[in-house]
């Protein structure tokens, strides 16, 4: 009874209410309380008679397994599911703050129709039936006038899947997810061409047993995914050496043995020099190369000039360091890993960086070896049978992680099909970009310019084009060009302010979603079930799509009566049931060293490339005339008085979507600009000063300064996701500066993804 805040609070509240006197006032207090999270402190409440519901997180895209505590029909605490391989029971600050997504006072609470100008935030509430009728009518109108391909669907969330299905059923190929063109798409491309396998710093690294991590800007402690970070920390605790390469000294750097403060945009030069030393000193895994690799001699010729001495002038990393790091890695191989950054949309040649990382990991023979990269287990749950999608180039399979590249993006057959407007996977445009995920940046451009064909309707499921991209004007123009825009979301943001119809979604604590099927060392299938009934007049995405399909004559694509029926149908086909999954929360296929690490047992690795071998200079890339991607591509440098502009993450915010969460905003209300003490002194800046920061194109704004030795003198940094301007984002609005105003608007030359790191900025004290 020592922490009896609850009882005393209750009595104090009752006392206050009685003091207020009028029934009107106290009933208002009661009704406010009804919307609020259950105030559930202390032993009287949190630990007494609660229910637990299964879920997986939606605060970032790693999707940790959850158990949600509820009582009296309200969720009040999120815990980790210890059985889930992605988080092993731990939940980060973001995950713990998920409760405040559901209970946010500014949730989208009922369908709304725009009554003012686009983006002016004037709305009228309308009933669901009217809203859905209108959406179906308007989308069909666009289809009739311009064809089904005029619909663009952009999804950003763990619940985007039904919208992709609906859009593909509607007949458009133009569905995209920003995760590819704006974030980590390029990370995977190199590995897919070289090995046919995903080797990206994602799920399939045996971190616990790795002995040497070369972290290429992978800020694994702040751009954090629970299980990945925990496994990495275990590896470090088990004695792995960490060399951290980043212009900024991050918390990850503080865990490393060595920090190499590389000049921004020059990772490729550093990696090429490592390959050069590996080949020159024959430090690669010779038996592996003899058995699995083709094209090594060609590679040798290509990297002949990329000496450690050559890279020194570019990266500012001493040549001796490159020799030493390469030799140290060779000594620890195959338990080594060149760790890719999570986001690899930085330079004009991210493909070259991705390719180089894949070469180093592969030539050290790390595949299917302890401490290297393992083969994940999969838990097979068949998809439901559906009629054919006439123009969807590829359907997504669910296997492990965020990506599945089983459909090689460069082998799309476009015969008889409408080509994607963003050019992803389209010959002659961006043939090596994945049409499964699309190039969202190029799609915005296509919408703004109405090229290569009219794009007149937009359906978004989550996401925020303004803050995940760098080009406000293109996004705005694209939105204004739409005949009709329907936004489905849980919370308000700058992009959905432009919608004609705004459909409110239930939060991830209030709904079922499709199964989470994943692969780590263990294979698994996990359940998201509602921990509570929706607090407002909201629906889940499957429900919304099902309702729309009925109104658009696409019922055949949504054959189930309810999402529970869909889940049960899928599970039954695999010999399980929804009832069983509801009981256990997760079904698993146990880890098996023989499956995960076949080469430790004398078994063979499989590389699903066209030749069946590791292609260090991939044939397909030669056919496309893109071998030059492996060559160093000179990157911009700051002129005197200019700085490289960089941005990144902290562990308790995701993208630009958690700054309005009251619990997370409390931890960081605004972002600041990191400036090294030397230039700060030259500019007369001290900690807390405000500067006006401008890019070469004149865009920018004002931001407070943090003076710190944790960054190179020629570089500035800020945390991503701040600087919101939508008045509905009551907590985040007007705080900090959006890095989207300062990131460069370049394109990667061969993939077509964004290159956000190429801008140079100047500072002026305000």
């Amino acid at each position, binding site marked *: *009874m*020592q*922490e*009896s*805040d609850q*009882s*005393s*609070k209750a009595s*104090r509240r009752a006392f206050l209410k009685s003091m207020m006197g009028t029934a009107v006032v106290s009933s208002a207090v009661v009704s406010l309380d009804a919307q609020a999270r259950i*105030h*559930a*402190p*202390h*032993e009287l409440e*949190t*630990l007494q008679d609660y229910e637990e519901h299964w879920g997986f997180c939606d605060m970032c895209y790693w999707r940790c397994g959850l158990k949600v505590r509820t009582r009296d029909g309200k969720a*009040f*605490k*999120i*815990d*980790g599911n210890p059985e889930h391989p992605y988080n092993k*029971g*731990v*939940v*980060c*600050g973001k*995950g*713990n*703050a998920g*409760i405040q997504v559901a209970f946010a006072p500014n949730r989208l609470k009922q369908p709304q129709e725009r009554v003012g100008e686009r983006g002016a935030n004037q709305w009228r509430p309308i009933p669901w039936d009217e809203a859905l009728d209108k959406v179906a009518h308007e989308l069909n109108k666009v289809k009739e006038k311009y064809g089904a391909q005029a619909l663009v669907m952009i999804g950003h969330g763990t619940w985007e899947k039904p919208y992709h299905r609906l859009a593909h059923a509607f007949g458009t190929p133009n569905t995209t997810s920003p995760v590819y063109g704006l974030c980590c798409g390029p990370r995977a491309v190199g590995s897919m061409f070289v090995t046919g396998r995903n080797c990206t710093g994602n799920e399939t690294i045996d971190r616990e047993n790795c002995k040497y991590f070369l972290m290429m800007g992978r800020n694994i*402690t*702040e751009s*954090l995914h*629970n299980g990945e*970070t*925990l496994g990495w*920390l*275990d590896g*470090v*605790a088990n004695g792995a050496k960490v060399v951290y390469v980043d212009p900024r*000294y991050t*918390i990850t*750097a*503080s*865990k490393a043995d060595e*920090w190499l403060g590389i000049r921004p945009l020059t990772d490729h030069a550093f990696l090429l020099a490592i390959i050069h030393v590996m080949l020159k000193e024959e430090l690669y895994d010779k038996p592996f190369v003899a058995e699995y690799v083709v094209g090594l001699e060609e590679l040798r010729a290509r990297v002949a000039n990329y000496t450690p001495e050559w890279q020194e002038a570019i990266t500012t990393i001493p040549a001796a360091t490159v020799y030493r790091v390469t030799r140290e890695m060779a000594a620890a191989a195959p338990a080594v890993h060149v760790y890719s950054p999570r986001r690899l949309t930085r330079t004009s040649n991210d493909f070259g960086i991705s390719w180089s990382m894949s070469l180093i990991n592969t030539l050290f023979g790390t595949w299917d070896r302890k401490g290297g990269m393992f083969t994940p287990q999969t838990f097979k749950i068949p998809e439901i049978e559906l009629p054919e999608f006439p123009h969807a180039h590829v359907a997504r399979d669910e296997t492990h992680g965020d990506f599945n590249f089983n459909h090689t993006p460069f082998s799309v057959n476009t015969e008889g099909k409408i080509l994607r407007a963003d050019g992803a996977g389209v010959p002659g445009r961006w043939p090596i970009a994945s049409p499964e995920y699309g190039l969202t940046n190029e799609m915005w451009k296509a919408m703004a310019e109405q090229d290569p064909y009219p794009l007149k309707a937009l359906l978004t499921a989550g996401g925020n084009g303004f803050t995940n991209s760098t080009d406000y004007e293109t996004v705005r123009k694209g939105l204004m060009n739409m005949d009709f825009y329907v936004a489905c979301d849980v919370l308000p943001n700058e992009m959905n302010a432009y919608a004609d119809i705004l459909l409110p979604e239930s939060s991830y604590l209030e709904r079922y979603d499709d199964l989470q099927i994943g692969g780590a060392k263990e294979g698994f299938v996990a359940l998201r079930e509602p921990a509570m009934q929706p607090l407002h007049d909201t629906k889940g995405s499957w429900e919304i799509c099902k309702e729309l399909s009925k109104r658009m004559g696409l019922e055949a694509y949504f054959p189930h009566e309810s999402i529970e029926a869909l889940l049960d149908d899928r599970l039954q086909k695999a010999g399980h049931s929804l009832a069983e999954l509801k009981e256990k929360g997760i079904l698993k296929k146990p880890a098996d060293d023989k499956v995960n690490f076949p080469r430790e047992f004398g078994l063979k690795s499989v590389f699903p490339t066209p030749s069946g071998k590791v292609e260090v200079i991939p044939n397909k890339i030669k056919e496309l005339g893109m071998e030059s991607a492996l060559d160093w591509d000179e990157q911009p440098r700051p002129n005197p008085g200019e700085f490289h502009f960089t941005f990144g993450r902290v*562990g*308790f915010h995701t993208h630009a979507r958690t700054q309005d969460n*009251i*619990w*997370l905003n*409390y*931890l960081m209300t605004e972002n600041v600009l990191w400036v090294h003490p030397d230039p700060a002194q030259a500019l007369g800046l001290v900690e807390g000063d405000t500067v006006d920061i401008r890019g070469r194109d004149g865009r920018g704004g004002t931001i407070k300064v943090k003076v*710190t*030795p*944790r960054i190179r003198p020629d570089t500035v940094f800020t945390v991503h996701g701040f600087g919101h301007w939508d008045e509905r984002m009551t907590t985040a609005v007007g705080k900090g500066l959006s890095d989207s105003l300062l990131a460069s608007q370049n394109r990667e030359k061969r993939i077509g993804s964004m290159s956000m790191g190429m801008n140079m900025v100047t500072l002026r004290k305000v």
Partner: protein
Amino acid sequence: MVAKYVMLADTTRCINCKACEVACRAEWDTPLGYSRDWVKEVEYVNAKGLPEVQLFPGRCQHCDDPPCVEVCPSGASWKREDGIVLVDHAICSGCELCVPACPYDARWLNPVTNTISKCTFCQPRIDKGLQPACVETCVGHALIFGDANDPNSAVSQLLKAKEWQKLVTDEVNIGPNHYYYTAGKAIPDAVMPKLNERHLSGTLMENIVNPLGTLGIGGMMAVFLGAGIKKLIDRRQDVSNKEGSHEQH
């Protein structure tokens, strides 16, 4: 044997992700603007001229000799046999004398309850055999909690296996039960405890008012007792006088 609960923080595994802080907030419904626990990020330039960052997750240190208990005029702050320092909210008047008394800044006045709040090591949870909320959710497994008197507990094993430090100085050494592993690095001054100026009023309470009060209560007891005894003696005398006079009759 009675348990002795301790918290270990392996700072080499802390990543300042704030999972502990948010989990604590969610578990105990802490009002915004306050937190029962924290992570301090200290950055400095080392002898080689390179930047360094150290992270110190912290909370009430559940000291062996807690000044918060000493200064508490109502007796609401108290220490359980297993070492956990607690606040009895039914008694706490919210006078805030204990707030500056704590050299770790672990206590604050909760504006909702008007009583003092702080970390309890999740006493209700541990009494049910659960881990504290911060420990259960710690992404890096940096926080470890348990009974130091149980030789088989994880904390006992770890205390033996590694070199741990406590946040103590020559000036402030009150037996904290929160241990830190820094892989041999010195703990920066910024996270060390400091005697609070405002602690003076608490010291006054601790050294003068409370002893005087004790004296006062003792004095009152003595007065009442004395008065009672005197009354008893008087009564007896009275009776014997009357009896005597009766005899004389």
